């Protein structure tokens, strides 16, 4: 069997260079690759183009990268909740490309599975459609969207084995499986790294072929963005 385990987050990020395009899994602060983001924030590299649904909060998630001015272009879908990001966007220090969330998901998946382009209805008649090919199928209008191209995918799973197989938990799955295999190199951090054979092959969400490096994160804060409870 093929083993993908690396021992440190430094090894996991080997080859990352300034100017690269990096996909990052997660929705809000849920399912984000915490250890990889921290290491990237502390690295000497910068000018990244990042593809991620959201932009974190001021002191966590992608916020750590914005604080270190690591990102020059942000491709995302909903970019609220982060003041430093907003400051950089308003002062035009960074470029921001906004994409319908389902289109973002499908563009990642397309890159993963070798589909160069597909049609989607999202954004027809809006500024998202500007410059894109429009075509009708069965009387409905669609835009042509193309697959992303990225150098690194950084994802986070719940459990993984040394061959790179991944299992996600709850809504922390989100964009993570779609980004696995969507970039030249996919790095997965997991809460629990188990030996090959410890995961039921029927329950694996992402087969190891889509993962190049895997490691167990040193620690997980798993911060809750909006703790909401039912009042008794």
């Amino acid at each position: 069997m093929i083993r993908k385990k690396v021992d440190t987050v430094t090894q996991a990020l080997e080859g990352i260079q300034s100017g690269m395009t990096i996909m990052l899994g997660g929705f809000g602060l849920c399912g984000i690759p915490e250890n990889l983001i921290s290491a990237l924030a502390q690295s000497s590299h910068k000018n990244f183009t990042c593809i991620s649904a959201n932009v974190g909060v001021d002191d966590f998630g992608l916020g750590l990268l914005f604080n270190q001015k690591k990102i020059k272009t942000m491709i995302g879908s909903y970019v609220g909740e982060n003041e430093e990001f907003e400051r950089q966007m308003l002062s035009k220090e960074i470029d921001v490309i906004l994409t319908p969330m389902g289109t973002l998901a499908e563009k990642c998946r397309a890159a993963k599975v070798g589909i160069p382009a597909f049609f989607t209805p999202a954004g027809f008649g809006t500024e998202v459609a500007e410059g894109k090919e429009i075509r009708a199928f069965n009387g409905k209008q669609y835009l042509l969207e193309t697959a992303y191209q990225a150098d690194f995918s950084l994802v986070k799973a719940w459990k993984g084995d040394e061959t790179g197989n991944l299992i996600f938990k709850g809504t922390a799955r989100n964009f993570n499986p779609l980004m696995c295999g969507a970039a030249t190199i996919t790095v997965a951090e997991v809460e629990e790294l188990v030996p090959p054979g410890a995961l039921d092959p029927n329950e694996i969400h992402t087969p190891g072929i889509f993962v190049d490096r895997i490691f167990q994160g040193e620690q997980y804060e798993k911060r809750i963005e909006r703790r909401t409870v039912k009042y008794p």
Partner: protein
Amino acid sequence: MALSKNDIAKRIAQELRSGYYVNLGIGIPTLVANHIPKNIAIEFQSENGILGMGPFPKEGSEDADLINAGKQTITALPGASFFDSALSFGMIRGRHIDLTVLGAMEVSETGDIANWKIPGKLVKGMGGAMDLVSSAENIIVAMMHTDPKGASKLKTKCSLPLTGVKCVKRIVTNLAVIDIVAEGFLLKERAPDVTLEEIKEATEGNLIIPAEVPVVKL
């Protein structure tokens, strides 16, 4: 008496039918979940990857790995499932969701909706809204009839950047229930003690007032 936000949600809840998969947007739409009629079997989808979403958790049992699209902690009901964002938006784009309820800044008399961007103001992004409005067959907008300055949000033509075109089927506001038909806004129901004149006054687009306009029943 105009409807409260909670009343708007209560009225929209009357649109629920047994067997509906429902996606509720942030704001007033979220409140719809508090008013599900008895004996109605529905399931809520949240586009970040859960079907069978339940109420907020009890204090102490919040799970960071279990949130809704508004990033709030939630619970999963028996029969729930988790999935990735491609399959989640596949449910939306593939028209498997039976009812979508969302807020809006403006709706036009042709059913266009604007709810994501105000030029010159901070843009937060469209999130899943464009996927939802371009795909759903049954979209109800929940919003106030006018903006805080008193300007109508039911327009002849949207002035703000669009989220989607010709997609809204029904609007429930604090003043009225209105359907989008070929000729424009068709007044279906009015809030208690709100006059037809007040509704007409608050509606910029073409408002069609039938002979009989019943009062909203809550």
